[in-house]
């Protein structure tokens, strides 16, 4: 039974405000992105996406997202495992540290890596002697993205693993399963939906990250520009249509993520 205490005009007003807000701040911008992208028709749109620099940016973004998501998947599982399965000193400190990337500005996240691996940085001399480029090169972009996206997987896993407890694993081991077998047959299947959910959010953030990547990238066109950086450059150079064309891909990613997230949430409830 809906609550009928408010008179109809008040209800319509409240619903109207909410819908108008969503429309102006969420739907309209999204619509604008696609409208601008296709403002000169489909061929110029495809041409803009087929530009070598745009293609390089897309490739780099995919590479960075793939590397950082894989690393976060593995490290996130290990960290969640350690935190939920063992008692050790400094556990609460570790739990707090996991959230650090959420509370720190992405620009600082990028700067940290410049300070560590840049020419004047802590490891700068060491790296220069061996001719290894990290900052203003792909490894730096991956590192910065890794840092920014680290919490997504771990934070999905910890509450679930805490709630599920250790008993199914103990049961598996008492039935003669090896540690590895227990992990792949019991632990992993039990957290698979949460893991996928974390990966999805992690991926969306990895592809869209601007601030941290901007600091460490060096903006070398066709080499160290990810999609968000490429869009900024195009926009600053008044190539609006091309900028929105690339932006439309990111917007599409957001929509796909949203749908996948809704579907996953249904499965998550079942675990």
């Amino acid at each position, binding site marked *: 039974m809906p609550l009928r205490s408010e008179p109809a005009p008040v209800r319509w007003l409240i619903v109207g405000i909410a819908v108008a807000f969503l429309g102006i701040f969420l739907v309209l911008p999204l619509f604008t992105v696609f409208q601008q992208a296709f403002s000169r028709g489909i061929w110029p749109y495809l041409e803009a996406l087929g530009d070598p620099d745009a293609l390089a940016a897309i490739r780099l973004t995919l590479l960075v997202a793939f590397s950082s998501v894989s690393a976060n998947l593995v490290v996130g599982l290990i960290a969640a495992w350690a935190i939920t399965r063992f008692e050790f000193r400094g556990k609460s400190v570790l739990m707090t540290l996991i959230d650090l990337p959420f509370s720190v500005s992405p620009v600082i996240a990028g700067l940290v890596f410049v300070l560590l691996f840049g020419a004047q940085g802590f490891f700068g001399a060491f790296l220069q002697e061996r001719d290894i480029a990290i900052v203003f090169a792909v490894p730096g972009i991956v590192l910065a993205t890794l840092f920014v996206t680290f919490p997504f997987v771990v934070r999905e896993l910890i509450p679930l693993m805490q709630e599920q407890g250790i008993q*199914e694993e103990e*049961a598996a081991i008492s*039935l003669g399963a090896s540690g590895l077998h227990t992990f792949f047959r019991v632990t992993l299947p039990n957290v698979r939906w949460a893991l996928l959910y974390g990966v999805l959010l992690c991926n969306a953030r990895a592809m869209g990250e601007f601030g941290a990547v901007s600091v460490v990238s060096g903006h070398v066109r066709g080499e160290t520009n990810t999609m968000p950086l490429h869009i900024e450059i195009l926009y600053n150079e008044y190539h609006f249509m091309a900028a929105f064309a690339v932006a439309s891909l990111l917007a599409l990613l957001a929509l796909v993520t949203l749908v996948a997230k809704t579907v996953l949430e249904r499965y998550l409830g079942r675990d």
Partner: protein
Amino acid sequence: MIGVHNVTKRFGTFSALSGVNLEIRSGELIALLGPSGSGKTTLLRIIAGLDWPDDGEILFDGVNALTRSVAARHVGFVFQHYALFRHMTVFENVAFGLRVRKGRQRLREAEVRARVTELLDLVQLGWLAERYPNQLSGGQRQRIALARALAIEPRVLLLDEPFGSLDAKVRKELRRWLRDLHQDIHVTSVFVTHDQEEALELADRVVVIDKGRIEQIGTPRDVYESPATSFVHEFIGESIVTPITIENGIVSYGGQPIGLDSQGVRNGKGALFVRPYDMAVVPVDGATFAGLVTRIHGLGPARRIEVALHSDDGGVVEVDVPRTSDVSAGQTIGLRPRQYRIFALPT
């Protein structure tokens, strides 16, 4: 046979087990009975190999088990909350222990199927084979957990509060069923419980544990009729407990000698333990205690009367009297124990 020798376990400063000794004979059904936090589950987990003691040893048929992992000990463990694998069907749950075998011990698929079907028949749940754990009732889950543990043909079956999370009716059914099952397959079994009724009804021998120490080991009859310590007397069955003092073999209550045998208990403060049905109503003259009947209640073969004792501490005791007794509320009566136990109070 399983030997537990001098097992000690601490969690930080908390002493969960101190110097526990126990022999479990082959084919026996043993209950570890104690209040929560007494260390009984810790003992079970140490026998299983899910926990390790700080001191002492565990022997399986005379061989040190502490150097062996849970898997190598070949124990069937049934968890309080079942711990069924939630993403596997009932069939796959039971088959798990067979499928993880390696090398020469590995079974062919047909053999696995035959064995699992046999086990599901044993627990009378063959028709649930394709269901998932969350589609089963608590009692069904418990039986599947048991079938899963039996699949590896364990040398010993360890059950942690096997009926703890079931409602009263299912608990009673399952208890009878487990006893029948044990009579059929005779696997050495140890179960943990805080429910005395469960322990007394089911077990061949009961191990009473309190604060990490074994208070008594004996048949259900032993621990009920000849409790070794005041804890056992109070924990198992009902007891009337009265504070007394003992001096040179003379037992006094409220400063007055009451003519009971001190049963060899040393001088000092003690406690008199009587079962409610072992207290006889007698004339006030020459009675052990005198008191005022404040309340009579209860249906069935016996009535329960509450008696406020005539004493400084104003104790109230509950006594069972036959239905035919003519005691009425407001009456002053005398009480004398037919059977009793006296224990020294710890100083």
